């Protein structure tokens, strides 16, 4: 019996849940002040989520997945990327998209049932939200492969859930990425739940990071509620990918504080105590504690900033509500580069019938 392969999975944390920095501030951060921008971005995500949930409650958008509790993971990914990189989200990562230049209005449009929401004015290469779980991982492999084939120094970054890690696309994708050594970072946002299925019923693997071992890839676990660790580990992985040193799988350990979506009743499957204990690990709270202690942020500034955010989200909501609807023809106009003759009759019918 010969040992022939040996693997270690490490977990990274810099800022503990009490807001104490337990290790020196790592790159890309040089001083606590550098944390303000991502901190403010986290507040922005949370403000948006509240607004979107409220809009859903009043029937102004459809089903919506809040990302409450996952703000550090989102901000960490976003601030590790360069503008020219490509981000391929699952459906809960509008927090990353905002930092990439996608507008709140676009995200509302999407969840409001309007395809224009996926026609991002900025971040033109970033992918639309992927509803079929984990399918985006393979797209990311394709995008990263394109970068490698074209010799472009760009990175594809994709996210999927703890649930998503069980699916074919995730597993086949990692294996391709390993063989092809492409510039790819896959982040498993392990928020402990896949709708009602708890993490323990999703996989017997002790960590999701170790799923990388199956593909001969590097796998790292990180405290996904620690913005500092998240950004640091993601940045390292993105840089590594950019230099051609291959793909990385990152497991961000976090918690889905809200129900799965506005259509979900989480009280059916999890107790309030669990949610309460998770609140003690809140990514915003701990960073706020740290920033205040470091005196780079104050309660007044927080108040003022939240005020501004309130205005921002209200304006986004108004702009969304003011959008005129797409014309009926639009349901035919984007299916093919050129409408096939065979569809002309149906298109005419659709317009005509709308006047019945």
């Amino acid at each position: 019996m010969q040992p022939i392969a040996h693997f270690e999975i490490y977990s990274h944390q810099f800022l503990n849940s009490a807001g104490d920095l337990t290790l020196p501030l790592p790159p890309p951060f040089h001083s606590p002040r550098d944390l303000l921008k991502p901190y403010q971005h986290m507040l922005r995500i949370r403000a948006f989520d509240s607004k979107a949930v409220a809009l859903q409650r009043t029937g102004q958008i459809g089903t919506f997945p809040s990302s409450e509790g996952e703000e550090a993971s989102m901000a960490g990914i976003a601030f590790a990327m360069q503008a020219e990189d490509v981000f391929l989200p699952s459906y809960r990562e509008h927090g990353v998209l905002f930092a990439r230049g996608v507008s709140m209005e676009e995200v509302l449009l999407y969840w409001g049932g309007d395809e224009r929401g996926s026609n991002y004015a900025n971040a033109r290469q970033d992918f639309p939200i992927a509803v079929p779980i984990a399918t985006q991982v393979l797209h990311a492999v394709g995008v990263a492969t394109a970068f490698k084939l074209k010799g472009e120094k760009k990175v594809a970054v994709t996210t999927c859930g703890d649930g998503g890690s069980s699916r074919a696309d995730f597993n086949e994708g990692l294996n391709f990425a390993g063989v092809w050594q492409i510039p790819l970072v896959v982040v498993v946002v392990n928020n402990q739940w896949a709708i009602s299925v708890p993490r323990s019923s999703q996989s017997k693997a002790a960590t999701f990071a170790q799923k990388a071992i199956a593909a001969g890839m590097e796998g790292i676990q990180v405290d996904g509620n620690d913005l500092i660790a998240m950004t640091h580990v993601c940045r390292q992985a993105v840089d590594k990918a950019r230099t051609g040193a291959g793909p990385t799988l990152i497991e961000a350990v976090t918690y889905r504080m809200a129900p799965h979506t506005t259509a979900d009743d989480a009280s059916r499957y999890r107790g309030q105590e669990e949610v309460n204990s998770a609140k003690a690990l809140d990514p915003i709270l701990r960073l706020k504690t740290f920033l205040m202690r470091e005196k780079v942020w104050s309660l007044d500034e927080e108040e003022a900033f939240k005020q501004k955010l309130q205005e921002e989200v209200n304006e986004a909501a108004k702009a969304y509500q003011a959008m005129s609807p797409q014309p009926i023809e639009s349901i035919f106009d984007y299916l093919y580069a050129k409408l096939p003759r065979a569809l002309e009759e149906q298109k005419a019918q659709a317009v005509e019938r709308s006047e019945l």
Partner: protein
Amino acid sequence: MTMITIVEAVNRALAYELEADPSVVLLGEDIGVNGGVFRATDGLQAQFGKTRVIDTPLAEIAISGVSVGLATQGLKPVSEIQFMGFIYATMEQLISHAARMRNRTRGRLTCPMVVRAPYGAGIHAPEHHSESTEALFVHIPGLKVVIPSTPRRTYGLLLAAIRDPDPVIFLEPERIYRLIKQDVEEDGVALPLEKCFIEREGSDLTLISWGASMHEARQAVASLEAKGVGVDLIDVATLSPLDSETILASVEKTGRCLIVHEAPKTGGMGAEIAARICEKALLSLKAPVKRVTGYDIIVPLYKLEKHYLPSVKVILQAAQEILEFA
């Protein structure tokens, strides 16, 4: 007897058969304590335990492949695919194995299994939640395809599907899950597969539909009848194997036929029905067989979704054209 909805009828049929047949097991995502996202399996895990009502990891290929394995061992797996939009991952296992295990082993191993999935548009759901691609399964020899349109038929046909010795795809019209209530006797009596239901009888027009579109079809028929037009309203219910006899007999009587479905037109089940009519009842036809269907496009997101679905008005317009054809 209680007035129940279609989704409740699903639940009652599952409960009945779990109780009656210890070899029945349910599996799927979120079907346990959560009772399924539409609550179709509500309370069943509490009642029958975690070895009869099994939450799976998030993997549809596995759900279908594991069902094949379970079925060959004398169990009767009834799996739930959360929405039809996520059923495509199961196609290899369903086509290459479930549908042909009996045939390839000359009957030695068999796959008595049911794959349930809510299907269809019109509930303001997110992207990829509005599929009605039943025709894909109809084209696969070895699979049966069933779509109920009332609580009673749901109850009886789901029982039949579970008891069937071969694989059945059972598609549930989510748009009318809670729209219709009926008294359903929970007597465990199955309805026959392989049989269309003639819901109304009349001699001027045959109107054929299934699933959620039956809702609009019924309204159209009511309005036609009010104008004195007699309609044979046929709920196909079992799309495969198709009960051509009932359909042909009706068309031979009426000479006029309209097919309504919400799936895209090209290659939809309406094509097969029209083709059979034109092959076997051509001389009875007094007008072209028309199809009122979804367009050959991606179902639009919810703001424009209603323009995709066949409406009562459009059905009536087509019926009028058929009736006026001379």
